[in-house]
């Protein structure tokens, strides 16, 4: 029998605010343990949390960018569980009135992954298990998160991968998070079940917690799908449980302890007042949203005429798109900048984080200058290409690298003289041309280009050569 995979995602995204969600401690990553803490975020009695305005704004931005409806009235709730990563023994989160609901992200196969909700909450502290003890660092405790929950709409591992990549890209574009999975600023929990193909009924699901790489998510899902199918085929039952994925052994194992008491006894946090979200605020945030990756890609293809693969490469990272737009500003053909970036500049960025930062040796302004020299006929393509390589090597501007004498091309007399020589030195090519082989003229153009060290305008030279041949014959 064939089995269909059914999966849903819960993704935690750390918001790029300056301060924590309920106090003014910094959210900076790293730092000595427990040095980004105050009485509020370590939960001392008598303290009062106060909500960070920017957290609300960022969450709304994330909601709008994923086609959600934004609640008019929202509130904070306490999620109770006893574990040392929470100093208060509860996490302040949102239960029945999340800020955003009913959105979706569309995949390239046309399917929409429905987003059930996006809510705001505080992150927990970090635990380090050491011999008989557990050490607790609350620097991360109280860092603002949004949790993005989808419906169980995934039917394949590829869809899951595309969703995570898209979500990551959108969050980066709108500037609410850097979504660095390896640093934990984006983490995914995946709910997985299987069912016989064609069946409508959902199977028993398991949840794989806290994965921080797209590769691991894919591997864990594949493993878990296989495990569940094997269980069913051998007549056993899938047990609903929380699992941890081990990337060394590529297996999942049961995660007990924290999840034993999954009765969270949610109730409204009486320390935090109602959040009213005026419609004017939502509209203002909507207006200020930048162009989203998908829209940008479509515009590059439809308006700028870039091939789809180029448009995809240029929009995959926010900084690269920004770079491209600056480099191509005011140039004649939008493809020129795209070709230079993809063909030459991409060679200097290899890793994901290098692409993400796109801190290359040639500034967008310098590339723009080079393209304009080319556009104005001051230099030829060959020279432009070799100059760009030199620019990447040295970090110098095109105008510093190209000799004045190489610029401005050839004057008319010099070109005429070289064309005359080309004709005189290539009697065979002339004969071939006159015999109907039009391509033979290229050999003479080559002569002109070579002897002008690439400065001549090839099209002009061709015209001139044909003219001379016709006059001679």
């Amino acid at each position, binding site marked *: 029998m064939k089995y269909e995979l059914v999966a849903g995602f819960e993704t935690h995204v750390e918001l790029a605010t300056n301060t924590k969600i309920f106090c003014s401690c910094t959210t900076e990553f790293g730092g*000595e343990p427990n040095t980004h803490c105050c009485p509020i975020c370590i939960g001392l009695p008598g303290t009062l949390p106060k909500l960070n*305005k920017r957290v609300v704004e960022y969450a709304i931005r994330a909601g709008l960018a994923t086609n959600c409806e934004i609640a008019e009235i929202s509130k904070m709730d306490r999620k109770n569980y006893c574990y040392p990563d929470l100093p208060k023994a509860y996490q302040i989160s949102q239960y029945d009135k999340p800020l955003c609901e009913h959105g979706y992200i569309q995949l390239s196969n046309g399917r929409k992954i429905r987003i059930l909700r996006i809510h705001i909450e505080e992150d927990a502290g970090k635990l380090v298990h050491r011999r008989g003890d557990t050490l607790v660092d609350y620097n991360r405790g109280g860092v603002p998160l949004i949790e993005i929950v989808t419906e169980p709409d995934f039917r394949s591992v590829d869809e899951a991968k595309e969703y995570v990549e898209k979500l990551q890209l959108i969050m980066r574009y709108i500037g609410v998070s850097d979504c660095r999975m390896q640093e934990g600023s984006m983490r995914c929990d995946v709910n997985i079940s299987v069912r016989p193909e064609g069946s409508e009924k959902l199977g028993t699901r398991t949840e794989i917690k806290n994965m921080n790489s797209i590769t691991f998510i894919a591997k864990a899902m594949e493993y878990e799908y296989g495990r569940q199918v094997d269980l069913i085929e051998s007549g056993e039952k899938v047990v609903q449980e929380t699992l941890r994925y081990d990337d060394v052994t590529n297996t999942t194992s049961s995660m007990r302890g924290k999840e034993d008491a999954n009765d969270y006894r949610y109730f409204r946090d009486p320390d935090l007042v109602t959040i009213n979200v005026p419609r004017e605020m939502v509209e203002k945030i909507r207006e200020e949203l930048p162009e989203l990756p998908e829209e940008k890609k479509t515009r590059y293809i439809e308006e700028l005429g870039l091939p789809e693969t180029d448009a995809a490469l240029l929009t995959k990272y926010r900084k690269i798109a920004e770079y491209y737009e600056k480099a191509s500003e005011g140039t004649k053909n939008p493809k020129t900048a795209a070709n230079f970036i993809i063909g030459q500049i991409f060679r200097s960025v290899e890793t994901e984080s290098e692409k993400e930062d796109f801190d290359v040796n040639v500034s967008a302004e310098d590339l723009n200058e080079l393209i304009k020299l080319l556009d104005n006929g001051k230099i030829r393509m060959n020279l432009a290409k070799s100059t760009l390589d030199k620019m990447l090597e040295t970090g110098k501007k095109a105008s510093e690298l190209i000799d004045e004498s190489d610029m401005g091309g050839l004057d008319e007399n010099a070109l005429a003289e070289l064309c005359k020589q080309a004709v005189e030195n290539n009697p065979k090519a002339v004969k071939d041309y006159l015999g109907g082989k039009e391509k033979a003229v290229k050999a003479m153009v080559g002569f002109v280009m070579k002897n002008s060290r690439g400065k001549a305008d090839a099209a002009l030279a061709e015209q001139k050569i044909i003219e001379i041949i016709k006059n001679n014959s």
Partner: protein
Amino acid sequence: MVTKEEIMKIAILSKLSVEDDEIDKLTEDMAEIISFADTINNAADVESDFDNINNLSNALREDETMPSLDRELILKNAKDSDDGCFMVKNIMK
């Protein structure tokens, strides 16, 4: 109706130890508390869910950092600490 099993579950969640001879009394008390809460529920206006006593809303803070507290003070009341961290018994079994 509150059952003895529910009382034991709540005790475990609340990290309370309950002796066998206390269960009956606690079950009775809990039933009374719940029926009292039901009375309040029946009287409550549904809309009041979002109200607080002063009808306040949107008490928001600007996103500006302030100095954190000295670590010494943070750890001052910890039962145990090491390497700048709070130290608790290993919770991994």
